[in-house]
């Protein structure tokens, strides 16, 4: 529908000036709508999606659901996820005990290990470089076991870039410790 712009007479125009003053005058006495940050905080952070966090297993809150497939690191547009994986020899199921020592000779032992022994990959750290993250959520979407979730962590500030390289595994464990103790 093609319309014509409404025209205004001078008298209407002068009246409009007073109407404008009335509007701002009314707003002057209306209550403020700002949130005074350090004293009050906004109340809608529950839906905010900050950087990702690891989800713990239901039965064991100290380990994550992550199966170390590395899909998230591959899906990330800015390559900010890095999985630090440690390989460890595991005794065959009857023993059900992991070898305490790993470290430098693990590669050698992995190769020369007898066929009975299995190599288990263990997540040592889940590094997120938040400096590069663009919060697109591709990692969360691609994760096949839903081991990643968005955190509501919005009050982030720091002096160096290193402060924004998070180890998500450690974060998760600290959170679990805090919640279980408190």
């Amino acid at each position, binding site marked *: 529908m093609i319309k014509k712009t409404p025209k205004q007479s001078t008298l209407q125009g002068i009246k409009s000036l007073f109407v404008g*003053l009335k509007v701002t005058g009314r707003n*002057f006495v209306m209550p403020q709508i*700002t949130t005074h940050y350090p004293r009050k905080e906004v109340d809608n952070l529950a839906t905010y999606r900050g950087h990702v966090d690891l989800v713990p297993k239901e039965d064991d809150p100290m380990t994550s659901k992550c199966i170390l497939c590395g899909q998230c690191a591959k899906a990330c547009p800015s390559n900010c996820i890095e999985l630090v994986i440690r390989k460890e020899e595991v005794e065959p199921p009857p023993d059900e005990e992991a070898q305490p020592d790993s470290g430098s000779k693990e590669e050698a032992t992995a190769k020369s290990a007898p066929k009975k022994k299995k190599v288990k990959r263990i997540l040592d750290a889940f590094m997120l470089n938040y400096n590069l993250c663009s919060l697109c959520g591709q990692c969360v979407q691609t994760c096949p076991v839903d081991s990643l979730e968005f955190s509501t962590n919005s009050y982030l500030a720091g002096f160096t870039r290193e402060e924004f390289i998070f180890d998500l595994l450690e974060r998760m464990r600290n959170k679990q410790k805090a919640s279980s103790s408190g």
Partner: protein
Amino acid sequence: MNIPPELIHISIALAAIAAFIGLNGLVLVYLERKVAGFIQRRPGPYEVGPWGLLQPVADAVKLVGKQLVRPKVADPWLYWAAPLLSFTPIFLLFLVIPFGPTLTGMEFNYGLLLILAFTGLNVLALCLAGWSSANKYSLLGAARSVAQSIAYEIPLLLAVLAIAFQFGTLNLTEMVHQQGPWPWQWNIMFQPLAFVIYFLCAIAETNRAPFDLPEAESELTAGFHTEYSGMAFGLFFLAEYAYIIVVSCVAVVLFLGGWQGPGAPGFWWFLLKVYALILVIIWIRWTYPRVRFDQLLNINWKWLLPLALVNLLLTLIFVKI
């Protein structure tokens, strides 16, 4: 040593005026920001001191502490003279304003004339600032300010002239005496048109929104004071606020009965009226968009000037009768 008492009187008055200007600058900065905040439904200055009361002080300290920068190609003499030239005449302006029945810096028969004459000096300061900065935006701002100030001075003078004819004097104290304490005895009831003309011209003369074209930030970044920093900018800023007070004071004297008011007359009535006027000016600033330059001049030459002339003529006829 034989110091004439007049000199002592004026010296004390000047010192008092200096304090008054400084204090008023602080109050106005605070008031402006608070009013703006409330209109926009936010608190305004809030962090420094209780209710942000110390914010203007913090601003002033910041301005004083800043380095004074002069562009390499700017004319050094004119560049530094401009802010001083803008600020110093203000002392003279306040000297003749009757704040109370006896509270006048200097009784002067041509007080109104003196105010009008020295207000004109500000144009020169802005012109110098714009020219000597060697900045194209400053130059445009200065050109605008000269055209605007000169144009708006004419209807302003004509409106004031009508009042002078009506009262038959240029002495501001005398003018207040001719008005009564109650609002219907104030001159605004006899000269409403002159008041409207004077008020519009005053806003334009002091470069306030919606007539703040010399410093229209969306067009000229900061207009004539683009290059100024620190207290050089601070002086322009202070001068602008001082001029707002001056034009409000004159308006109160000419139209709103000066220090007279119901009950006890005194300088409190005067200050109350002045601040009421300033509040209206601030309110207007935070409501309207800016007019365009040619429209600004059109309003002046096509509306205000003929109206002021008609007003003057009518006043003359009434005075004769």
